[in-house]
């Protein structure tokens, strides 16, 4: 088979698929090609879209490839689908997800210890949304249920893998800082970590409106 034909087939598959396509799925159809060849063809396609300023992009999401629209077109598409952005996750949901993502597999009490509040409801919603899944039970007294993030979690946040999340240490405060004796701590200036400026913009908006 000619490489150009393979390229068309791959493009067609990505076009048709409603979920990220895994390399081995594509390879299963085009079995005479090596995985690396397919990867190359995909990045070629991706580059073509970008170079020609086409409406599409190919994004690596949740370990697969998916055609998405160019983010700069979002405002028009939102008009078409009349999405207001109200379908965003709430603060508690995001916090809980953050804890699950980094501490997985985690039990409910572990999540609650960090958040300082009960997470029954939030956890349930997140499971219903398939963003969090039950990964098993811990082999200790009571065999507590363990929670972890799902494939949908990666898709939802447009991540290829959990590795793409910033390291916890990047948030300035490391475990070591916490253990430091007090007289040493004070000398360290706390500089805001990445993302600290955007925490709870939603909440801030509300505060402004109500004042």
């Amino acid at each position: 088979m000619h490489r150009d034909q393979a390229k068309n087939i791959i493009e067609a598959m990505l076009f048709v698929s409603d979920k990220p396509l895994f390399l081995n799925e594509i390879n299963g159809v085009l079995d005479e090609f090596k995985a690396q060849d397919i990867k190359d063809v995909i990045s070629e396609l991706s580059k073509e879209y970008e170079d020609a300023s086409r409406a599409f992009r190919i994004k690596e999401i949740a370990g697969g490839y998916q055609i998405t629209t160019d983010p700069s077109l979002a405002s028009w598409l939102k008009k078409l689908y009349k999405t207001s952005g109200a379908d965003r996750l709430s603060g508690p949901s995001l916090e809980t997800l953050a804890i699950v993502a980094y501490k997985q597999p985690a039990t409910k009490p572990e999540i609650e210890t960090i958040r300082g509040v009960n997470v029954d409801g939030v956890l349930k919603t997140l499971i219903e949304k398939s963003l969090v899944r039950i990964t098993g039970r811990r082999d200790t007294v009571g065999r507590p249920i363990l929670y972890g993030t799902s494939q949908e979690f990666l898709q939802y946040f447009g991540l290829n893998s959990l590795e793409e999340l910033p390291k916890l240490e990047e948030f300035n405060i490391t475990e070591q800082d916490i253990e430091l004796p007090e007289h040493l701590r004070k000398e360290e200036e706390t500089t805001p970590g990445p993302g600290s400026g955007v925490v709870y913009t939603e909440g801030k908006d509300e505060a402004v409106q109500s004042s």
Partner: protein
Amino acid sequence: MSYKVKLDVFEGPLDLLLYLIKKSEIDIYDIPIADVTEQYLEYIELMRMLDLNIAGEFLVMAATLIHIKSKMLLPPEEKELLPEEEEDPREELVRRLLEYKKFKEVAGVLQDLEGQRKKMFTRASAFEGEPEEKFFEASLFDLITALTKVLKDVPKEVFQDIVKDEFTVEQKVHDLLHILVNTSLLHLSEIFKKCRNKAEIIATFLAVLELIRLKEIIVVQNHSFSEIEVIRNEKHRLRVE
């Protein structure tokens, strides 16, 4: 002092504490515990006045703060001798605050990612319209929503007599169990439809809750806001005399 902050923004006691620390530009490692405790209690009082539901966790934290405050008031025990092992009563709290703050920041990152992702549209599932037999257990809120919906539909003026315990939850539990002996699935709205007045609806609703508690029935919903179905819990065979 005027409070213009929307109070229910605080999702928990740690969230509120972080806010107070940020607002007063306090060093998180050296929290003036007396001040913060006072401000914290003021907020709780305000929340109470506004009839906001104060979660128990807020009160636990209030107790913790007061405990730390009282500990700090006590004279330090020979701290010259063992300066390194001297334990600051605030240490545990600071550790928890920092840990929480970290994840709150991660939540901010996730929120950004979510925003970016929402700007990228992908092909919607072609099978979305197909009826999917995927349901999840209806939550208490779903049930309450269903109840309020039914209560709204009840004709208002028709029943003005004072009904004296005409309908008991106990009776309704029995009725429901009897119905469920013959049918395995009931629509919640149908159960309510048979009720003649508010009192009966409420008794029925409480009976449904009771049966859920007793694990005799399961309530399910195919998707959000859809009809709530009541199913007999087969694993927990009912015993009707």
